[in-house]
């Protein structure tokens, strides 16, 4: 694989991760447990949406073929989205969303931190820009996890349940693809990000008084565009108008 093509795929994958996470977080609008949290999650959705657009635009600048960021976001089929499986999982209750956001943003925080040192200056500029945002998402979600862990019996058990529920999707974020292999030296090694992530999450879980599941089985496939059934439904809503009125300008 050529570097250019690998970079394209890598940037689209970053965009997909952010886009699908944004779409899930936006579901919280008018559903939050308090107004402040409603706004915080809408804000995170906005951050991820902006990131997605930036990564798509970067990808398109590498292989300009007349398509726009909207085309990438709206006009692909299920088997052409490369987001991790965790991003597409349903929101569940507030504990599940906070656990999901913490697991996800901890990954992005480490990834963007490393990418901000990349020799690809475009990628490093975009990563440093996103880094501030995901750091905040991690802080916000991990603080809620700590509250849940030490709040009430109910909050602790909900948070624990969320970890059991989501844990199997975590290794998927660190899968090495052909693009990663080609970009060795330009982008960080997924395995090294994973080991840093493990220690960040171990530390967080111990501060929460929560634990990982005993059976650490994992499911994978997001970066090969092999998804859970949830993605198709996300895309139905996301793409509705673009599909119903092909070529219309909005």
């Amino acid at each position: 694989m050529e570097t250019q093509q690998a970079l394209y795929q890598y940037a689209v994958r970053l965009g997909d991760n952010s886009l699908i996470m944004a779409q899930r977080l936006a579901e919280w609008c008018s559903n939050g447990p308090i107004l402040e949290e409603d706004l915080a999650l809408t804000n995170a959705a906005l951050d991820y949406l902006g990131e997605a657009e930036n990564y798509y635009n970067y990808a398109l600048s590498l292989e300009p073929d007349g398509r726009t960021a909207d085309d990438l976001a709206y006009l692909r089929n299920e088997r052409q989205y490369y987001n991790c499986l965790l991003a597409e999982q349903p929101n569940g209750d507030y504990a599940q969303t906070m656990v999901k956001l913490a697991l996800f943003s901890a990954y992005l925080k480490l990834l963007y931190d490393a990418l901000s040192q990349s020799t690809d200056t475009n990628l490093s500029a975009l990563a440093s820009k996103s880094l501030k945002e995901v750091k905040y998402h991690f802080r916000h979600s991990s603080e809620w996890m700590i509250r849940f862990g030490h709040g009430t019996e109910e909050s602790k058990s909900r948070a624990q349940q969320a970890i059991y529920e989501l844990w199997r999707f975590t290794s998927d974020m660190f899968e090495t693809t052909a693009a990663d292999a080609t970009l060795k030296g330009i982008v960080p090694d997924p395995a090294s990000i994973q080991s840093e992530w493990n220690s960040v999450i171990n530390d967080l879980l111990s501060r929460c008084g929560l634990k990982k599941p005993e059976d650490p089985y994992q499911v994978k496939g997001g970066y090969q565009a092999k998804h859970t059934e949830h993605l198709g439904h996300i895309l139905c809503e996301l793409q509705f108008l673009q599909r119903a009125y092909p070529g219309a300008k909005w």
Partner: protein
Amino acid sequence: MSSTIEQNSPTTVMQERLDQFQARIDADEKIEPKDWMPEEYRKTVLRQMSQHAHSEVIGMQPEGNWILRAPCLRAKKILLAKIQDEGGHGLYLYSAAETLGTGREALIESLHNGKAKYSSIFNYPTLNWADIGAIGWLVDGAAIVNQVSLQRTSYGPYARAMVRICKEESFHQRQGYEIMTTMMRGNSAQKEMAQDAMNRWWWPALMMFGPHDKDSAHTQQSMQWRIKRESNDVLRQRFIDKTIDQAHLIGLTIPDEQLKYNEDTKHWDIGPINWDEFWQVVGGHGLCNEQRMKHHIRAHQDGQWVREAANAFAQKQISFN
């Protein structure tokens, strides 16, 4: 002296206070939370702020209905930011209401048990993407006319909340009008959606200003206390006059066969408003009244354990960083 006794009688003392209060209002002084105020003034201002706060929050539902389906990244970002603003307005207004001693939790309880109201406009459904344009342009447009006027309302915290809110509102109206403009420049299906939205939102937007002055129960006292600065009909006419040109500019038809420009008054005259529909929706029988309340109650109940956990944790005061 007999007059001393008379001066000190409770009714006279009360009358003096009322006169002093009215004198401050007439001098355009702002009334602040710790100032003396007539009980009826406190109640009216609190009712208005609570209704306004709930409207901002309930209004997130019909617009939120299209977030996931927004047709492009830009539109999705703008809509998210817009709804976020509305939630923020809710927060300012709940805080303003709190200055009169009623907290957010109590206000929400009154909403849920039906004692407190929110603007009836949000009991109409958003059925196509152009509805998002129509809400920004017409609903926020109508709200702005009212809120600009309320920047001079006599209760200080309410007036200051309005100043902050008005700064953000003009962006809301612009983004709504931009959606309508884009759709009217689009294909025939888009034009049809835009006109359909116009047809469904025009009259309800006019109803947002409330009954005609001659039928409005609260108006007179509210005007005297300068809680309200201008009457329903004056505000409604201002909205009509500024909006009709905007509609015509992009090729939208106003769904009113009796609409006519009046050369004498230099205002647009409209046909009769369907007040039966208005009272029906206010009375709880709009398409979405049930849905909006159930949604808010469900979200609030689902969040109960989260708020309890946060409180329990705050009390344990475990430090982390």
